[in-house]
């Protein structure tokens, strides 16, 4: 008698299917992830598995000897996380074989993400796989499926525009800075105002290797506090003329009702460093930077609306690429599935 073929499965829930309250319950911290992994290892019939656990999804990819193991797995997940069976039935999903491969390809390529085309998920999938590989939770089937997943995700990234353009205000600003300065390492960033959006912008610039960061605030104490958090220099608004003259990129986000950076101030600063462009990012409402400064040569001014519009355009472009990406992934899934099916013992 022929042995029963194994099944490649996916059990989980994501932001597409589960409301936030259920996702909060399902989220696995290190302890619960370890408990669940131990349960999976002890479940008879489960031959291979990997746990993908991000803020938007908890997914178990695995190979099981038979369908009975899957209901045991679902019990284990519910018991570990405290989610009721009824909740999981309405918010979770179970996929088999070909559909599991298709889903994983889609997830790793960023098509299933809340922000379409984001790249962080690929790193998270790689991390989840490496974690499972190191503990010998995976086997020949999952190893092959995950390797092919990474290849597919890389192909999508390089051959389509799914990841083109940034889609948050801070990263759009950093992207624009790259188009003005190229390498951001030698640039000097001045952040005027120590509010949340200013600090987020600082983080975005730091992540792209901006050379030096200075934070200017109404009081030196506030500036020093923010500079300590961001790892930069502190100054006050009284020293703005010198700080502006020394900066290449200025992000302003104060709550001042008047212009903090006037046209005359900018013009005087540009005169002191004529060969370098100046990038002004006005993140404040009401605006901090006099719009007339945009008319100065070598000065590039973007306000919140400009940045939001670019982010929206980029998102629309990414979404327009989804159909193309899905077609590519469908081809790759169709090419891979027969090999995986053979490994699982399915009849040709």
């Amino acid at each position, binding site marked *: 008698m022929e042995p029963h073929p194994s099944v490649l499965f996916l059990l989980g829930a994501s932001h597409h299917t589960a409301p936030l309250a259920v996702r909060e319950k399902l989220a696995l911290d290190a302890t619960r992830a370890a408990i669940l992994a131990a349960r999976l290892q002890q479940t008879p019939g489960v031959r291979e598995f990997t746990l993908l656990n991000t803020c938007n999804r908890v997914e178990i990819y695995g190979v099981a000897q038979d369908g009975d193991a899957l209901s045991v797995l679902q019990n284990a997940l519910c018991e570990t996380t405290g989610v009721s069976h009824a909740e999981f039935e309405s918010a979770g999903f179970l996929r088999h074989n070909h559909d599991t491969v298709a889903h994983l390809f889609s997830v790793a390529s960023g098509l299933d993400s809340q922000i379409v085309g984001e790249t962080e998920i690929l790193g998270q999938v790689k991390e989840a796989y490496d974690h499972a590989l190191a503990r010998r939770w995976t086997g020949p089937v999952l190893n092959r499926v995950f390797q092919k997943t990474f290849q597919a995700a890389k192909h999508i990234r*390089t051959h389509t525009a799914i990841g083109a353009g940034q889609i948050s205000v801070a990263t759009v600003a950093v992207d624009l800075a790259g*188009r003005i300065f*190229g390498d951001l390492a030698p640039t000097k960033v001045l952040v005027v105002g120590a509010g949340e959006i200013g600090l987020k912008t600082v983080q975005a610039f730091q992540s792209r290797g901006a050379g030096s960061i200075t934070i200017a605030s109404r009081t030196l104490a506030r500036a020093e506090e923010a500079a300590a958090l961001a790892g930069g220099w502190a100054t006050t608004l009284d020293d703005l003329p010198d700080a502006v003259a020394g900066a290449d990129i200025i992000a302003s986000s104060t709550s001042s009702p008047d212009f903090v950076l006037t046209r005359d101030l900018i013009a005087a600063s540009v005169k002191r460093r004529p*060969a370098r*462009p100046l990038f002004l990012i006005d993140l404040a409402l009401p605006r901090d930077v006099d719009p007339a400064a945009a008319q100065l040569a070598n000065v590039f001014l973007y306000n919140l609306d400009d940045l939001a519009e670019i982010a929206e355009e980029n998102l629309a472009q990414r979404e327009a690429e989804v159909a193309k990406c899905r077609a590519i992934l469908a081809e790759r899934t169709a090419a891979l599935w027969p090999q995986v099916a053979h490994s699982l013992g399915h009849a040709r």
Partner: protein
Amino acid sequence: MSPLFTDRALLWVSALLYLAGFLTGLGALTRRQASASLRTVLNSFLVAGWVVQMAGLYLRGTAVGGCPLSNTFEIVQFVAWSAMVLYFFVGTAFRLSVLGLFTAGYATALSLVSLLVGRWDVGHGDRIFGPNPWIELHAALAVFSYGVFGLLALTSLMHLLQNWSLKHKKLNGLFWFLPSVVQLDQINYRMLMLGVLLLTFSLGVGAAWWVRDTASVDLPKLIMTVSVWFVYLVLLILRWRSRLVSARFAWVCLMMFLVALMSLGPVNSSRHHEVILVPER
């Protein structure tokens, strides 16, 4: 020789290869794809076009018994060839994928126009530079410097486009692939230095022979070439002193090249006799 392998036939093939490279690059840009394979295809067309163009110029050089700079057609072809040589160096060093597209378009335009305007290819006869290799070097360097200024005009155009896109917040399409404003400004500055250096050396060599036979060069040619050199030199000093920077600098570089190109006709037509001086021992 078979008509398939005449100098003009090879130069036609070269122009068509440049055109194929240009269309490949343009197609990639409109689809917003800049994959390594597409860049390889574009560069392959350009390398092939450049090799075939060199073969064509070699045949012409053999026919005229020296560097093929005996009429406007040959000079324009040589300028296109020089620009391509520079692209192979600069394009690799600065990773400017879009520069390949611009250079392809520029070389296509120069090559096709020079081939289509029949009256530009009226020869001056054999051995136009006489037996003096220094005069040949002077001419070749001068035309090569025009190639540099041509590429400078292209990178200046790219600078202006990038500046315009950032100022007007039109960031998609072609603009998405352009290098940064600062990178383009630095490239323009270096290109200007190289062009001025080559032209200065060329004029220095020419001047050393001209003082021995002042009648060998017509006044219009003398005024024109010295004026072009002088304006580029002033431009370099202004850029060095940060008096002319960024978009304004790019505008002047672009306009100046158009003037320099227009000066080629009068310079070429004022060449009325050969220089037959030989170096003194």
